[in-house]
């Protein structure tokens, strides 16, 4: 009886959640297939014309590739560097550690960005990082790292150090210990930080736009903002269609990561 009730409650909850999150998506599901979409949901006279236009667009597909480069590069830098730093900060008590982390977190979380862009741009110019993907990756990584370290430190703090001590006894170097003992345990955290980083980079417009000159290097988030008229009115057909293409890689990545590296890791080590 109790399990039945519980199941009904859970099913109701799942349905409500699905409805809440899906309802606004109706526009995204209908507009790309409509020849002349407006800002309301309507049953389209089905067409794939919008997709054909985008396939012919000289920038659309290339920009998705650029997005993958930027997102993957940034995620790699952020996950590796943050894991190293979080592990060290978690295992070695250093004076001022937490204050430093909190301050860095605050610095990176204030968003407006526009006032800071002059310093960042001039700095990137000095370092010859303008118009290169590497520059964007480094600038974005610098901003995302404090949060990533903060998140990962929670995960490393929560794992007991006893296994590492054991590994040490068997002569493993700290880097080996990190790789073979710690990383498997905090894998859900690493996966989460990776996905978070990708999502941040994927949606970021201002930094890649300012730091890249050649439009051939522009990521999809920048190209998305070109589907407007000279007067700033949106081309809803192309925007909705491109949005659909734009979200596919990230959702696919999420499904892949969550299947392979699972947020549901109950590694044998802890049982």
């Amino acid at each position: 009886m109790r399990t039945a009730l519980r199941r009904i409650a859970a099913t109701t909850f799942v349905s409500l959640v699905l409805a809440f999150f899906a309802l606004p998506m109706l526009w995204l599901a209908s507009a790309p297939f409509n020849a002349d979409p407006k800002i309301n949901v309507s049953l389209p006279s089905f067409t794939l014309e919008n997709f054909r236009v985008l396939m012919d667009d000289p920038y659309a597909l290339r920009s998705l590739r650029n997005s993958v480069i930027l997102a993957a590069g940034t995620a790699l830098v952020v996950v590796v560097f943050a894991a190293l730093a979080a592990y060290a900060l978690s295992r070695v008590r250093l004076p001022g550690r937490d204050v430093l982390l909190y301050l860095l977190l605050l610095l990176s979380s204030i968003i407006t960005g526009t006032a800071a862009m002059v310093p960042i741009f001039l700095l990137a110019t000095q370092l010859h990082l303008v118009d290169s993907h590497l520059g964007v990756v480094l600038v974005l990584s610098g901003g995302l790292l404090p949060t990533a370290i903060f998140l990962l430190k929670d995960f490393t703090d929560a794992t007991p150090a006893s296994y590492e001590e054991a590994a040490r006894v068997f002569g493993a170097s700290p880097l080996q210990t990190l790789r073979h003992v710690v990383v498997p345990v905090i894998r859900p955290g690493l996966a989460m930080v990776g996905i978070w980083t990708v999502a941040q980079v994927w949606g970021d417009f201002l930094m890649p736009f300012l730091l890249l000159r050649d439009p051939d290097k522009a990521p999809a988030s920048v190209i998305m903002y070109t589907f407007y008229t000279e007067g700033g009115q949106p081309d809803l057909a192309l925007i909705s269609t491109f949005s659909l293409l734009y979200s596919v890689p990230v959702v696919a990545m999420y499904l892949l990561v969550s299947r392979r590296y699972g947020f549901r890791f109950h590694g044998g080590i802890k049982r």
Partner: protein
Amino acid sequence: MAPDTSTRAEPTRSAAVDVVGLGRRRAAAFVAPALVLIVVFLVFPALWTLYLGVTDYRLTGLAATHPHFLGAKNYTDVVADGRFHNSLWLTLEFVGGSAVLGQTVLGFAIAWVMRERPAAVRRTVEALVLLCWILPGSVVAFLWLALLDRDGGTLNAMLGTPGTAWLLDHPMACVIVFNIWRGTAFSMMLYTAALGNVPPSHLETARLAGASTWQTLRDAVLPKIRRHVLTSLLLVSLWTFNDFTPFLITAGGPENRSEVMSAYVYRTALGEGRLGFGAAISLVMLLINLLIAFAYLQALRRRRT
């Protein structure tokens, strides 16, 4: 100012300063790559921006080449501005409603319920929630305008209330619900990962002992994920505080009734290229964020002891 948490007692580790023999030098080497990037691309521009905040610097015009030193004038201007107070209050409403209550509770609930659902259901829900989070702000704005439009809007069609201008009549409520929809993914992911770290044996024990769901959560789960809860609260609060997307849906209106902080910054400073003034407001916002962080830290410390 900054809460000095380094002196706080950490029962599990205070005795063992370096449990795994990492050594300070190696620890420093582990931290160095991240720290170099942070110092160059975050701290350095930060100090520069801080300096801009005491000038009348602009991106263009005479003040671009010859900015004047203003001292604290930008700051006194901000603090004296009635619109700033209005937007601060709205922002607190926005953070409290959408981030602290909405995203955290819903995100945890989804993570908790999905544990026991079939993989297909779980992946569908997670992918959908994630989609709301990764779509660019401009696109998301269209989705919600199509939902809430007063003539052809989906909501009005479903409720049978044609002509109701939700965004004009209830701007803050719309923006709060919107942000719950928009940002729950992060809390969901964090709690899913955190719950993954709770040993199943604990839950099993609770189940065998006949504990209710509530008791299980309180006694077996919460103690294990407390740090994650606070981290999530802290991060989503800070992000929501600085979130710009509501502006895309209501443009801060009508009559500034949804002018949250980022919209205020945009409308009073950045849209007009007043970078010095914008930098000053951002420091004020940082100090308010510091208070929020401090409050969470206090909560963390209290729970620990």
